[in-house]
């Protein structure tokens, strides 16, 4: 681990501060099964909700007859589009998605009606009994055809440098990635409780309660203050909770019936309810001088957005801006198109557009190295960007740390695992069904580098509010940020501790009425954004406490001078409360020019992965043995949780490389279950060794960078590169299927 000096804490060392790995407060309750997730919500007298979903990719709704459902004893409501009290549509940037189907359904699984009943069984029966007559219509499900028809959400054209620049060595390639699901273990769940005065409190697992709130009150047709959203326990997110699913439905049912209403989606329904990672089709042309200098990259990207926009405009923008990796290039021409089809909507997932292109540009870099007769790592080092360089796509000068070459060198210097599997069948590819023996195995090694921006971009007013209050017992941190499992709660405690010297820190997740927005728990941003707000607020609280006590240092016991308590926290508070509310903003970004130019991003992070695989080429079976990584993290605030992020992200990358894909035929999902949407299990998990590169960021607290997304960006590319190395096959699609490896 490399360590570079970072911002110096101004207080004495405190237990559980930054750079240590204290236990997370919700860790033991989660392990013991005592933590209340959103699926555990309960209110006396509550009803259960269920959703009627379209079985067609596209259909006209001829009629909806609720009578058969309402005739079932215990059924209290059947609501349709006609019953949406306010705005009939929702969506993040563009409100193009009907809250309930508006006469035509545009994707398989689109909500058509919602019901409420005494119990979950009756609700399910009622949903099945709602009589909907559909007239199936021709569905547009091919993204290429959608592009030809001009059915697109956004077209990017990022152009930079001399368009006539040509290299002597040219490689071209066509790549595809499949539709990937976030597969968070906690399915969508929530509870809406009417307040008896026309308002409602919604308890729900989501990534951004304030954005949900904006969409919610508008569709309910109530004043903002009449709808309040409270975070409930979240079992993972990965982007799946950025768009609304059941929020408005629950509140409509609660307000309509005057009763609390709970809804929990089962796994099959969850696959239909939330957005997925965009499938992609990508054409690339790389040109280099004979010495390996990359001089021109042309690319055309088609990401299918599905039926509604959600965040497709931003995902395709990322795809285009990061289309050629963290490398110099004199001349760039990237077209990025997000298509509109009748496939299920695609939107946010960890990596947000950077994952797909990394799979393609890193395959191109390997191909280019082979064409040049160069070592692929040398080629990457030769072209690596650094802080102060211009990003060849957007022209932005990179501020803060961007240690691409150090990441690559550190990873390349790590030892490789011992060669070949031994006799233990558990270490062989495939299941343990006697399909493979050690003699059949070939080993391969693959390397990939990826990068992405941190926080929101393109002139978005991105901020996070946090409040820090001194109490006689310590500090109270209040925030609306979503702890989705990543460990932000611990990092906020650590930041507050190190800023103040007070070990006792409670983090309270409060509702939309109690505090301003923390922004989304996405884009790897909360450690830097809400962490930044907590740092500023905690420092202000500390300074005020010390001013009142006439100077010294702060601790949980009070203000110290020469090691002696001269004022307890209660003494300090005798003058009045000390509380600081901070709204933190990152450095401003600009909107893109027509050619995608500008200072569009607030900062970047780079990571690299090296995968080692064992392959049975005759059977097409792969075992991912080890994936090592080096990542630019700024400052490791909680090293154990950080490594956990790297391991989890790598496992998601392994899944996309060799097994995960939502299989969609003519717009209909064919594998909406964990029987057939395969996720790597602990037995499929590779060993992981990590190097953390600590060069301080220019605005993150204590120099820290967000670390959530880079682990998923290049891990898939590295695994597939390793399979290419083992088999010699030109694998251009992720996930790689056994058929592709075996060549059948």
């Amino acid at each position, binding site marked *: 681990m490399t360590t570079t000096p970072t911002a110096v804490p101004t207080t004495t060392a405190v237990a559980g501060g930054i750079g240590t790995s204290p236990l997370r407060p919700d860790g033991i309750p989660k392990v013991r099964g005592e933590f209340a997730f959103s699926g555990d919500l309960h209110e006396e007298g509550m009803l259960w909700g269920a959703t009627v979903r379209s079985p067609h990719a596209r259909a006209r709704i001829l009629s909806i007859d609720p009578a058969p459902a309402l005739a079932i004893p215990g059924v209290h409501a059947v609501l349709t589009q006609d019953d949406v009290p306010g705005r009939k549509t929702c969506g993040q940037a563009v409100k193009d998605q009907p809250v309930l189907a508006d006469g035509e359904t545009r994707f398989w699984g689109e909500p058509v009606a919602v019901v409420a009943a005494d119990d979950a069984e009756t609700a399910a029966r009622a949903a099945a009994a709602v009589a909907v007559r559909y007239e199936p219509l021709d569905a547009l499900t091919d993204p290429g055809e959608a592009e030809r028809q001009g059915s697109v959400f956004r077209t990017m054209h990022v152009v930079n440098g001399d368009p006539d620049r040509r290299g002597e060595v040219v490689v071209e390639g066509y790549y595809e990635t499949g539709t990937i699901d976030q597969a968070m273990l906690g399915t969508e769940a929530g509870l809406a409780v009417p307040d008896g005065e026309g308002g409602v409190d919604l308890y729900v697992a989501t990534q951004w309660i304030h954005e949900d709130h904006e969409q919610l009150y508008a569709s309910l047709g109530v004043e903002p203050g009449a709808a309040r959203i409270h975070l409930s326990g979240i079992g993972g997110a990965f982007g799946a909770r950025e768009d609304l699913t059941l929020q408005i439905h629950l509140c409509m049912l609660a307000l309509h019936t005057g009763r609390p209403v709970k809804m929990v989606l089962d796994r099959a329904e969850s696959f239909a309810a939330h957005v997925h990672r965009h499938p992609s089709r990508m054409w690339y042309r790389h040109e280099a001088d004979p010495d390996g200098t990359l001089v021109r990259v042309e690319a055309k990207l088609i990401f299918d957005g599905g039926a509604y926009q959600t965040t497709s405009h931003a995902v395709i923008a990322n795809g285009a801006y990061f289309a050629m990796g963290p490398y110099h290039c004199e001349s760039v021409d990237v077209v990025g198109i997000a298509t509109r089809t009748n496939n299920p909507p695609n939107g946010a997932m960890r990596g947000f557009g950077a994952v797909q292109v990394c799979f393609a540009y890193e395959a191109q870099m390997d191909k280019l190295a082979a064409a040049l007769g160069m070592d692929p790592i040398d080629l990457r080092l030769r072209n690596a960007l650094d802080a102060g360089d211009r990003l060849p796509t957007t022209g932005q000068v990179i501020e803060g740390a961007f240690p691409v070459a150090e990441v690559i060198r550190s990873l390349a210097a790590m030892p490789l695992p011992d060669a070949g599997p031994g006799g233990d069948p558990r270490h062989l590819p495939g*299941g343990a069904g006697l*399909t493979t023996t050690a003699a059949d195995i070939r080993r391969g090694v693959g390397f990939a580098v990826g990068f992405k921006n941190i926080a929101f971009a393109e002139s978005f007013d991105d901020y996070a509010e946090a409040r820090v209050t001194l109490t006689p017992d310590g500090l109270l941190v209040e925030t609306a940020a979503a702890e989705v499992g990543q460990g932000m709660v611990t990092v906020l405690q650590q930041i507050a501790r190190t800023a103040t010297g007070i070990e006792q820190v409670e983090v309270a997740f409060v509702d939309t009425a109690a505090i301003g927005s923390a922004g989304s728990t996405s884009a790897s941003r909360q450690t830097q954004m809400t962490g930044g707000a907590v740092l500023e607020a905690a420092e202000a609280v500390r300074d005020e406490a010390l001013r009142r006590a006439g100077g010294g240092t702060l601790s949980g016991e009070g203000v110290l001078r020469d090691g002696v308590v001269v004022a307890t926290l209660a003494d300090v508070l005798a003058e009045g409360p000390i509380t600081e509310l901070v709204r933190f903003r990152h450095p401003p970004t600009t909107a893109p020019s027509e050619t995608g130019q500008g200072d569009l991003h607030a900062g970047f992070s780079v990571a690299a992965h090296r995968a080692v695989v064992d392959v049975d080429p005759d059977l097409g079976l792969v075992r991912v043995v080890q994936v090592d990584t080096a990542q630019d993290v700024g400052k490791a605030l909680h090293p154990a949780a950080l490594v956990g992020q790297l391991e989890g992200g790598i496992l998601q990358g392994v899944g996309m490389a060799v*097994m995960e894909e939502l299989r969609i035929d003519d717009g209909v999902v064919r594998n909406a279950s964990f029987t057939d949407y*395969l996720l790597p*299990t602990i037995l499929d998990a590779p060993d992981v060794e990590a190097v953390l590169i600590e060069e301080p960021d220019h605005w993150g607290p204590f120099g820290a960078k967000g670390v959530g997304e880079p682990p998923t960006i290049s891990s898939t590319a590295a695994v597939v590169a390793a399979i290419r190395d083992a088999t010699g096959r030109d694998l251009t699609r992720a996930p790689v*299927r*056994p*058929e592709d490896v075996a060549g059948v």
Partner: protein
Amino acid sequence: MTIAHDFAYLRPATVPDALAMLADHRGAMVLAGGTDVVPWLRDDAITPETVVDIKDIAGFDAIDVADGVLRIGPLVTFSDLIASPVAAEHVPALVEASHTVASVGVRNRATVVGNICSAVPSCDAGPPLLVYEAAVEVAGPGGERSIPVLEWFLGPRTQALAEGELVTGITIPLPGAHGGCYAKLSRYRGEDLAQVGVAVLALPGNDYRVAFGAVGPVPFRAPAIEERLAGGGPGDADPAALDALVDEAISPIDDVRASKEYRTHMSRVMLRRSLAAAAARLDGGGPPYGEQVI
């Protein structure tokens, strides 16, 4: 999904009681481990008016050997079979298959009899029971009968049990010295359904029995392959001819789990590897009988 329809739940203590209940309630579903029945109820794949739970019937959980026959009761789970020294001694390929069924938690509940009553094409017990030439013992309104496993599987999720009948056990004539093998293709190391299953028995005198699962509407024996192999070593048959016989024997489907071409390819490769393993085991060598670790 939760189970969204009502049904009567009956729990007989004896076989005559169970038969009486089945006679009184046409279309009743018999419940043992419930690892198939409960998910089917949740998915509305079945909607019986009555469920007859046989877990209280005494003696149904026994594995025993008498008169040259191994008998497996209807409540014997895959975990029971894995833990049984008698099963390991006499039917090691069935135990090997048991190790590949789902996960420990499922194997602790799922029964061998239930597996073949569900009769999905990929059932792991099917191919080994076929090569061991087992029979299904049945009691019903017309008395008792014994159905050879060769005649048991009629179609996907369909078997030879008649209305009102109850399986009372599986019998396997002790095969004597043999080498067995069950090879299963899974997509990953997590619990998975077989994409291809191959069971092979190598008997003294170069006598082979071969059965496939998951590559046809039912698990089935492959007599043409057995005839071709008879009298020679596992490596004596011309590989291309063997592949052609495999292609004739199987009728794999194309679905989200695997393509038809890949299933075909794997059936060929896995047959070769299973034959080699079974023959080597007959001679006291070969790989140890496989253990699944989840």
